């Protein structure tokens, strides 16, 4: 990798003596070498923020005409935590005995990967939005601030995000937000289903399915949703038309949708965990968990593993490839009331009948924190930025940063009109949706939502055409259920286990041949 950057900038011949070209055996000064490398890298990168820096690189190590030297030599430094955010794997250790070609390929690909990580870290500056926050005055605790005060203090569009829907007829409501955060799905216990574009308050459809509803879930986009009714699983269109009635899935209590696998995981009252591929409409697996009624369920968004909570205090982890649980953890002394996992797949928060709230590191399977709540938490939800919301009866409390540091008091609190039945943070907004016995409440939680979304993944402002294109691409890169495992990066690693196994088999074969030979020679 010669330094094309250095060569591409035309040499200003003013005041410069022509130097003979540097040969590879001649030592370069450190500064020049560094400047050359960085200049080279800068010249290769897609210049978004690089143009002003390029000049810096060329001049680094050289004197200006005025005689001054660059006070900030080299490329702009990237803060360590930002670089850490984009870090993937550690560099592989190279053996001395490896083939030179393989070593070369590994080195080059790792260099390219590092460059990409640095570029992504630099791009972070250009993100348009900042996260929300709520800070009280000196003695004021933030949980004493009411929702009305917050709604008055912010601008009118944000204030409109705090609203109550009074729907007391049809029972406590289950809530689901679509992946982009634009559309809201409400399912009442007595059969009322409504899907709304909650920001513009436009009702998309409203039906009564004439049966009791256990759970509602959006499928991959805002065009279809699944309703777990008393007997079977039904799939409806966003206009309210029933598309499918899947009789194989009976007595479904809870559902989770795995967006990148297009799988709908359902937990039933007869202790069956079933996976339905919604793109082809086939049941992938039906696992008999043999653990009783399954009504506590959540997914780990990082590796698509389903977490089930059981009345004996255990939490079990399931993947569609195994008939037994991957992991069984004893979490609580009573039954488990609710489980939730954060979006990076590191922390799991569970609440149980023993009135405890526990935080676990799910990758190392270790307990981290344990809190005592006077009345226990019936529903839990973690937001994109790590805020935890817990409901007890009709009180909703939001805790900030529960996983890392021990928390003494809630961040916010709110009382809703009925017993809370469903809880969900809206994906890219500072909003928490609570479904309760008296309808639905949308409350403001500053700092909950991820401020910058990615347009290619989930874009709340996408048009119908963009949604169709996204749907086609998402279907093309649908991940097969065979790849679901505890470590999602398993495909990127060398299969050492199989290699060792094969090597051992070969060694065994040779040893047995040798032994036979010795026996023959002895006789």
């Amino acid at each position, binding site marked *: 990798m010669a330094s094309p950057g250095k060569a591409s900038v035309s040499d200003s011949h003013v005041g410069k003596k022509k130097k003979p070209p540097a040969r590879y055996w001649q030592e370069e000064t450190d500064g020049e070498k560094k400047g050359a490398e960085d200049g080279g890298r800068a010249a290769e990168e897609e210049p978004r923020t690089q143009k002003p820096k390029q000049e810096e690189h060329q001049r680094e190590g050289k004197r200006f005409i005025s005689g001054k030297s660059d006070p900030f030599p080299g490329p702009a430094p990237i803060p360590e935590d930002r670089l850490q955010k984009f870090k993937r794997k550690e560099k592989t250790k190279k053996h001395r005995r490896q083939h030179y070609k393989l070593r070369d390929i590994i080195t080059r690909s790792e260099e390219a990967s590092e460059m990409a990580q640095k570029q992504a870290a630099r791009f972070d500056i250009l993100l348009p939005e900042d996260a929300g926050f709520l800070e009280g005055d000196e003695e004021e605790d933030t949980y004493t601030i009411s929702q009305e005060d917050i709604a008055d203090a912010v601008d009118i*569009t944000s204030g409109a995000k705090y609203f109550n829907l009074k729907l007391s007829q049809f029972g406590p409501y289950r809530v689901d937000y679509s992946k982009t955060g634009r559309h809201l799905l409400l399912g009442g216990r007595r059969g009322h289903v409504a899907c709304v574009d909650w920001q513009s308050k436009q009702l998309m459809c409203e039906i009564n399915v004439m049966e009791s509803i256990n759970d509602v879930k959006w499928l991959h986009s805002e065009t279809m949703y699944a309703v777990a009714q008393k007997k079977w699983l039904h799939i409806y269109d966003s206009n309210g038309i029933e598309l499918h009635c899947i009789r194989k899935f009976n007595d479904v209590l809870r559902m989770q949708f795995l967006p990148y696998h297009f799988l709908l995981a359902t937990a039933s009252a007869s202790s069956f965990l079933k996976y339905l591929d919604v793109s082809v409409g086939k049941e992938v697996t039906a696992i008999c968990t043999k653990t009783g009624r399954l009504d506590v369920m959540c997914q780990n968004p990082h590796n698509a593993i389903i977490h089930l909570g059981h009345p004996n205090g255990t939490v079990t982890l399931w993947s569609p490839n195994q008939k037994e649980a991957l992991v069984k953890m004893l979490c609580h002394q009573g039954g488990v009331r609710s489980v939730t996992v954060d979006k990076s797949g590191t922390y799991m928060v569970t609440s149980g009948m023993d009135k405890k709230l526990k935080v676990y590191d799910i990758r190392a399977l270790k307990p981290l924190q344990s809190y005592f709540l006077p009345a226990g938490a019936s529903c839990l939800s973690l937001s994109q930025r790590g805020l935890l919301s817990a409901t007890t009866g009709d009180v909703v409390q939001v805790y900030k940063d529960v996983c890392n540091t021990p928390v003494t008091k809630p961040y916010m609190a709110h009382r809703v009109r009925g017993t809370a039945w469903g809880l969900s943070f809206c994906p890219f907004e500072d909003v928490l949706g609570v479904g309760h016995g008296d309808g639905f409440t949308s409350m403001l939680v*500053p700092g909950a939502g991820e401020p910058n979304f990615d347009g290619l993944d989930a874009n709340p402002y996408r048009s119908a055409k963009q949604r169709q294109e996204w749907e086609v691409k998402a279907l*093309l890169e649908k991940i097969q259920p065979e790849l679901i495992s505890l470590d*999602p990066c398993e495909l990127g690693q060398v299969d050492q286990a199989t290699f060792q196994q094969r090597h051992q088999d070969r060694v065994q074969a040779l040893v047995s041949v040798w032994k036979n030979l010795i026996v023959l020679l002895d006789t």
Partner: protein
Amino acid sequence: MKVKVLSRNPDDYVRETKLDIQRVPRNYDPTLHPFEVNREYTRALNATKLERVFAKPFLASLDGHKDGVNCMAKHAKSLSKLLSGSCDGELKVWDLTKHECVRTLQAHEGFVRGIVVRFCGTSFFTAGDDKTIKQWKMESPGYGEEEEPLNTILGKTVFTGLDHHQKDGVFATCGQQVDIWDEQRSSPIRSFTWGVDSFSAVRFNPVETELLASCASDRSIVLYDMRESAPLKKVIMTMRSNTVCWNPMEAYYFTCSNEDYNLYTYDMRFLDRPITVHMDHVSAVLDVDYSPTGKEFVSASFDKTIRIFPKDGGRSREVYHTKRMQHVICVKWSADNKFILSGSDEMNIRLWKANAAEKLGVLTPREKVAVNYSQKLKEKFQHHPQIRRIAHHRHLPKSIFHQTKELRVMKEARRRKERNVRKHSRPGAVPVVSEKEKHVVTVVK
């Protein structure tokens, strides 16, 4: 209290008019893009499958010769011209863009053994079985003019191969000995012999322009330097080579196509063992030509197929065959690295794509980006078993499929026998000979 709630201005995220493109804000945070490896793997799998779907390499068949096509020559300056000589002495000039023959002339009585275009592109030389070398003009004769060679040289013996120097007005022929001719003289300026009675091919090195290589009938490849008076050295192999071709990018590598179904790439400085043995054909390999990038070469074989090999790989990456194509005698890789031309003994020249799934023509920038992305994905995941299985799968004619299996069984049997002999004899009595050394008998200076 200080409070800020996330509120986005839709004007920043939605396009202004219908004529604008849509806005796509990006955030590269890895937690927003889970399952990176799995999604990339699925994309790589799709890319590999689509490559197989779009792999339609056959483009056109150039029809017109009345006897099998014996040799071909690329035009030095023009990509769209091809010259081909057949076994009845006829020479045709083809326009590859229109797939038409633009000029026919009766060059020799008997086989046309070699054609080569002069480096300037204005004339070409042919050598034939009637012991003559003729030089012709590149432009077609005008109205009413007869086809006349510019120059005719009568030789004493049959000429079997012909090649021209890259820069000087010098050409070399081979027959019973290798001769170097000056264009203006009618007798060779130098002749090289080494006790062999016939040579089958001669080639000038395109990079080190004074070097030559030739294939001799005593199963050897002889290297010459034009400036010396005697040949440099030769390597004798177990079977005879048909043709030799120099790598246009690496000055010292050449590849020879051998009768024992393999091709061997040698470094001319170390002839005691080949750099690589390329094994995939099931019958004698008749011709070989390098791509202008020097990274791959194409070989034509008696077993009715053409194979493309990477320069350092032992196995072919691609095989082309057709029911109508019989024994392929000569093959050329076009100078723009995109096309392969094959001449076979059923009088047809076929035009193929070098990359079977490539879209020809001008690509839009988005298409180019997509092509580059899928290429990189396929490279990244090429070792995964499912992807490897799909990428390597090629349909073969039944005869070749069974023949490969048979050859594999034979090789395995020989290997097993050798292992048994080694096991049951004194240690060291039967030395282990590597596959590469096996095929070289000796190097003579």
